[in-house]
């Protein structure tokens, strides 16, 4: 069976950054497997600007951001296969893939990096009543149709959900001459970034209807309109608030789901909140030598943080491969400290810290459960508060992070649990 030191599943922003970092860490035998016919993943259709401010200190569009990483992969001559679907990954790192040139191939990997990204929550997950006429798209599908394939998906649109892709598409359709009548969001706050509300909705006078949802879809062959109603605190429609909007297009921007069928197949358990694998501070899953990064691990709002996280996964996978090859292969670090999310913090990534082999600093990323004003984010080692920082605004649409240091953990060697919580006082 063919062997590669590191096999990377997915050639989007996470896979590319992981590959570049693993090569930099001294691993030459890499292979990226990508199902599309180009590298770059979803960035290819994200033609708007705003990418790369943290990484390159300039504002790039999605394709330009991807091009920087693709250039690194090309320069380093990192091998990749396009039009290649991974069919299966086993717990002991056998990877089976399919493409037209090679057929069905199973290879062994020293380490595997999961970088499959996420997909959109579909209409079927919403239970919206009505027929199934043409004209209903997930926002990302509409984005692909417009930006890559060159179709105007509709002339009068309503958008359900205020996720970033929906907001971006509201502007995109407006610029191309369509009329976007409203964005309806069932929650009392937007799921997207503030800047996108300003520059995609406010700039064009598109109303954002918070605590509203689509209660009826009209039209049999092609969508003719939707009924939007206000919802109460339990998200049930309030009778008498229904309003009819005529439209030929409904875009759904109602959430992203990490794409973890392959992880499950490898026997890796998924986190209930993130829908991604549970990982330690090296981004290693429960399966030894299998790492995860990017949107397959948890949905990010900034690609810059995907790249950072993926680079860390690449470095750690490289270290693992080298360690396995050295004669005095060290045992896995034993002292494992769980991280828990409490009081308004929904989850943390990583979920565990391997205290013995910890790096100097570990970035813990998380999201909050609601919109909070003037709250602290606090870190506890057992019952002792180690640090806190005040935030003017916390919102579920914006990922937060804290940095843990090895030094502080060494000062508290008895720590059994690390807790991250929000606090009013």
């Amino acid at each position, binding site marked *: 069976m063919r062997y590669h030191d590191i096999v990377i599943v997915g050639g989007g922003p996470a896979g590319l950054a992981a590959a570049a970092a693993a090569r930099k860490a001294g691993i030459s035998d890499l292979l990226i497997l990508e199902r599309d016919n180009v590298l770059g993943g979803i960035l290819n259709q994200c*033609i708007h600007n705003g990418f790369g401010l943290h990484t390159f200190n300039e*504002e790039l569009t999605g394709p330009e951001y991807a091009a920087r990483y693709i250039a690194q992969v090309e320069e380093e001559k990192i091998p990749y296969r396009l039009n290649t679907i991974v069919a299966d990954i086993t717990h002991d790192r056998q990877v089976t893939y399919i493409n037209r040139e090679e057929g069905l191939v199973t290879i062994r990997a020293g380490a595997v990096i999961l970088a499959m990204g996420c997909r959109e929550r579909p209409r079927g997950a919403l239970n919206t009543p009505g027929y199934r006429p043409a004209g209903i798209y997930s926002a990302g599908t509409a984005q692909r149709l417009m*930006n890559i394939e*060159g179709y105007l998906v509709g002339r009068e649109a309503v958008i359900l959900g205020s996720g970033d892709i929906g907001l971006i598409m509201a502007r*995109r359709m407006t610029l191309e001459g369509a009329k976007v009548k409203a964005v309806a969001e069932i929650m009392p706050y937007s799921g997207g970034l503030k800047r996108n509300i300003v520059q995609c909705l406010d*700039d064009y006078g598109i109303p954002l209807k918070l605590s509203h949802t689509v209660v009826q879809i009209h039209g049999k062959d092609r969508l003719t309109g939707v009924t939007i109603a206000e919802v109460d605190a339990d998200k049930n429609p309030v009778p008498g608030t229904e309003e009819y909007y005529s439209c030929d297009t409904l875009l759904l921007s109602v959430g992203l789901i990490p794409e973890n069928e392959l992880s499950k197949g490898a026997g890796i358990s998924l986190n209930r909140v993130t829908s991604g694998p549970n990982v330690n501070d090296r981004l290693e899953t429960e399966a030894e030598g299998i790492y995860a990064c990017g949107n397959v691990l948890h949905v990010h709002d900034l690609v810059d943080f995907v790249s950072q996280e993926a680079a860390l996964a690449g470095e750690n996978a490289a270290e693992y491969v080298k360690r396995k090859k050295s004669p005095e292969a060290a045992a896995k670090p034993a002292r494992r400290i769980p991280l828990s999310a409490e009081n308004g913090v929904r989850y943390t990534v990583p979920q565990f810290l391997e205290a013995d082999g910890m790096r100097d600093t570990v970035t813990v990323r998380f999201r909050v459960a609601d919109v909070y004003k003037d709250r602290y984010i606090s870190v506890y080692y057992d019952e002792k508060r180690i640090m806190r920082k005040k935030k003017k*605004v916390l919102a579920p649409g*914006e990922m937060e992070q804290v940095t843990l240091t090895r030094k502080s953990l060494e000062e508290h060697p008895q720590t059994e649990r690390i807790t991250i919580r929000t606090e009013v006082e």
Partner: protein
Amino acid sequence: MEVKELICINCPMGCPLTVTIDGDSLSVTGNTCPRGADYARKEILSPTRIVTSSVRVNGGTIARVSVKTRSDIPKGKIFDVMKEIRAAQLEAPVEMGDVVIADCAGTGVDVIATKSVGRA
């Protein structure tokens, strides 16, 4: 004295900015980097945006090439710029950085390609 609340759109942090306008002087708080102060000043005095869109490509591996204005343009000119972008057509191949429309809609700003599209 007038106080305006803005949200910085320079990067996805979206800092909440408070601009205090006192006659000719203008002060900004709430920004975490210098870009925020610049943005607030500009947003009050002469708002600008970078416009991104796509242009038809004939004979390419894909049907559209993504484009952007090389720098920001006045907000009031967005639809004039879009009119020219929508009318434009290119022949493959297109290289990232190629000028698609020079001096678009009299803004003095070029529209450039943000990806490369090879010949089919």
